[in-house]
């Protein structure tokens, strides 16, 4: 009835018409609530989800590993930075503390109105029986045997030996040490001698003189070594025996010898021997 050519034209026309009609109809409701699309989604999506999830999981591990490596590196860098900053802070605090102590020494220097040499303690006595310290100034700095040594807290001791760059200072707590001193208030006089660790004996104080616990004992200047009026210590204990003309007095030294770091040495003008 129809030729083959005619059939092809009619088929083509029908297909174009169907396409136009279906597209125009579907454009009115682009996402139908049912249909084969939903089936496809239901079938494909779980696999997509699984594959993408797995990829993300491994990708996450990989990235996390690199992230951890980076974090570790950063952690190490921060740790080093923290350590350096702590060291700087420590140096700063040390410098600030030393500055305070130096200010105190400077104040003392102005008060005593005598030339003095500041020195640092570099070592202590190797024997617990003697109380000496080694300082980093010697005869080259103008100091010598017999020079008095003080700090902002009070009397430290006396130079007993000196080389060109170092000197040995006998502390007032040494058994061989003796300082002529008076109680600041009552002017009771005696000799401060080294005794037990951390204490000094205040000998030859007459019983008739009034001495009370916590009284300040200062140098009398009578020994011609230490300047007058420098703190030696505070009265710790007083024992008045039934007999005897003296009372037993012990002192807590004004200077904290456990933490002694900076000191002032007062060079004594050397006597010139007459010909």
């Amino acid at each position, binding site marked *: 009835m129809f030729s083959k050519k005619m059939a092809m034209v009619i088929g083509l026309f029908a297909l174009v018409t169907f396409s136009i009609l279906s597209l125009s109809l579907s454009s009115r409701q682009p996402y139908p609530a049912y249909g084969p699309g939903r089936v496809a989604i239901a079938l494909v999506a779980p696999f997509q989800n699984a594959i993408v999830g797995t990829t993300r999981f491994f990708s996450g591990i990989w990235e996390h590993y690199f992230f951890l490596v980076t974090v570790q590196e950063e952690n190490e860098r921060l740790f080093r930075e923290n350590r350096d900053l702590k060291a700087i802070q420590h140096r700063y605090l040390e410098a600030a503390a030393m500055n305070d102590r130096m200010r105190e020494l400077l104040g003392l220097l102005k008060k005593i109105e005598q030339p003095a040499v500041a020195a640092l303690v*570099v*070592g*202590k*006595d*190797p*024997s*617990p*029986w*003697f*109380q*000496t310290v*080694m300082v980093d100034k010697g005869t080259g700095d103008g100091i010598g045997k017999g020079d008095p040594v003080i700090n902002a807290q009070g009397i430290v001791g006396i130079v*007993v*030996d000196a080389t060109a760059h170092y000197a*040995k200072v*006998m502390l007032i707590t*040494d*058994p*061989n040490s*003796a300082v002529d001193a008076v109680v600041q208030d009552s002017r009771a006089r005696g000799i401060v*001698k*080294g*005794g*037990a*660790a951390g*204490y000094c*004996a205040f000998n030859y104080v007459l019983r008739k003189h009034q001495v009370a616990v916590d009284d300040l004992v200062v140098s009398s200047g009578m020994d011609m070594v230490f300047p007058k009026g420098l703190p030696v210590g505070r009265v710790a204990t007083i024992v008045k025996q039934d007999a005897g003309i003296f009372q037993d007095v012990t002192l807590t030294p004004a200077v904290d010898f456990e933490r002694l770091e900076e000191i002032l040495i007062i060079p004594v003008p050397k006597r010139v021997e007459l010909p």
Partner: protein
Amino acid sequence: MTVLFYLLVSLCLVIIKTTLIPGMPLLERFYDLLIPIVIYLSLFRPLREGVPLVLFFGLMMDSLCGGPVGLYLTTYIWIYAGMRWTGQFLSTGNMLLMTLAVAIGVAFECLVLLVYMLLLAPSAVPPADAARTVAYQIIWALLTGPVILIIIGRSQKLLDVWKERIFPDWLDMNQE
């Protein structure tokens, strides 16, 4: 080489004793660390090594300490001579006896220092806590003396091995 080794060791010990140990709690009354070396030298080393070293130790301590010159020198010479003489009769390999030797050496040094303060020093008086200091020193000596002696002994053996490697001819000549 042996003398040089002991000189360096003694200097190190004295520096540690005067700088680090005073700041450590419980160790402020630690005993004289040169005593174990003096005892070791007296018991195990020949006179030509021991005598100059003991003299050096004594002079070094005398110049660093607040005591009079000769105090430590005398003490070390007496300890050296006494231990050398005692070593002829006793077994020097016994660790218990060695420990006792260090403790006796420390006690002897304390005795000499106390006698000096009591009788010889013009104005010194022994510290009020002298008995406690002596007790602490002897206890420390009993506890650490053997360790120090073992360390010195091992170091000496190592030193002998190195010496043999470095100067084999010199050692052979010496032995001949």
